[in-house]
């Protein structure tokens, strides 16, 4: 049976931290609880690589790893009064880390189910000057539009190109919503015929 990576954090695959470091952390945390900012900084700086190593088992993306580490540090800060200096530090720390990592993985799973990753390719195609193919067609579209009857052309310009709603377009052009609908529909049909068959609109 394979074990989940997040569950290895408490004991097992992770090498137990050396006794000396453990004691160090415990003392630093106790002093941080008393308000010693220097000790707190030293503690946080020394546990960060340790947390990063744990987080790296759950996340591949480096920015996800950093986010997870920050998440853990914030929780640690919020619950720092729950640490009892008489008890070892790393079980306390790993319990918090494990909790946060599991939460993050769950959230990520939920998000992945609904969203698509944004890739660099999408950015390239969204930039205006790169869409040369589309730019060439603009002239054709303009001529096709010019050849439409004036009523249909106005309807298409207002509803499809300027993106007005039917109500707004009706107010702007002075025609009824129903007439606009019919005109737009006919214009689109004509344009479709023009672009597929090459016949006159």
């Amino acid at each position, binding site marked *: 049976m394979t074990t989940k990576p997040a569950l290895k954090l408490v004991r097992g695959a992770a090498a137990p931290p050396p006794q000396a470091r453990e004691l160090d952390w415990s003392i630093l945390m106790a002093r941080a609880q008393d*308000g*010693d900012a220097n000790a707190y900084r030293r503690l946080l700086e020394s546990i960060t690589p340790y947390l990063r190593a744990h987080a790296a088992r759950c996340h591949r993306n480096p920015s996800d790893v950093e986010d997870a580490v*920050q998440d853990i540090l*914030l929780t640690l800060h919020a*619950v720092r*009064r*729950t*640490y009892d200096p008489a008890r070892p530090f790393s079980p306390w720390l790993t319990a918090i880390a494990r*909790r946060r990592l599991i939460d993050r993985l769950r959230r990520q799973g939920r998000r992945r189910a609904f969203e698509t990753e944004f890739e660099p390719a999408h950015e390239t195609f969204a930039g205006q000057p790169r869409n040369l193919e589309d730019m060439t067609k603009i002239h054709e579209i303009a001529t096709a539009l010019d050849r439409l009857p004036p009523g249909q052309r106005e309807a298409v310009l207002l509803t499809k190109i300027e993106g007005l709603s039917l109500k707004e377009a009706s107010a702007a052009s002075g025609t009824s919503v129903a007439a606009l609908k019919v005109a737009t529909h006919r214009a689109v049909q004509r344009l479709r015929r023009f672009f597929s068959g090459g016949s006159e609109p």
Partner: protein
Amino acid sequence: MTPTDDLISALTANLRPVRRLRPPLLRATGFLLLAALILAMIAAAHGWRPGLLVRLAEIRFALSLAGALFTGVLAAVAAFLVSLPGRSRHWLWLPFPALALWLFSIGYQCLSFWTPMAPGRASPGETVSCVATLVLTSLPLSLALGLMLRHAASFNPAPVIFAASLSVAGITATALTLFHPIDASIEILMFNLGTGLLIMLSGAAIHLFLSSRAEMPE
């Protein structure tokens, strides 16, 4: 300087000394003393239920009372232990034997007492004072537990809320059994655990909402 270093600087810059939490067993004892105080105050104001001593001699009644009481006590201990990072989650099993005893006796009561209990014996005045006992016990206890265990909210709230609701349910049911001749254990249990579930679900919903807001680019 990475964002994590920035975060560490920000956290250390605003560091304020905190008071360490006392050992969980001590805190649980404090909470249970509060519960005992509330029960004693209700006993002084309202008086025990009629014929309590006679009923206590009945094994079924005594088992039910002990089950509810021990569920309340052990669940409180479990809640205080589980709320601390690094303590075993297995502490959650602590109240289960008592809960099983309690549920067993409730089931028995349902069968034997349900019908003769409903009409006649519980007068409207009795019902009102019974509801008053419920509110006077469960409300301050829930508030006290919420206050004492608030640090668990940012660590791992769900099991703590469960154990805390169970504890309040057990103590409230004990109070009701001691002061009123009405048996509403099932209702109390359902009400308290239901409230706990509601808190957990609304917490999850808020969390979902906040995290989706936080992750939006704009």
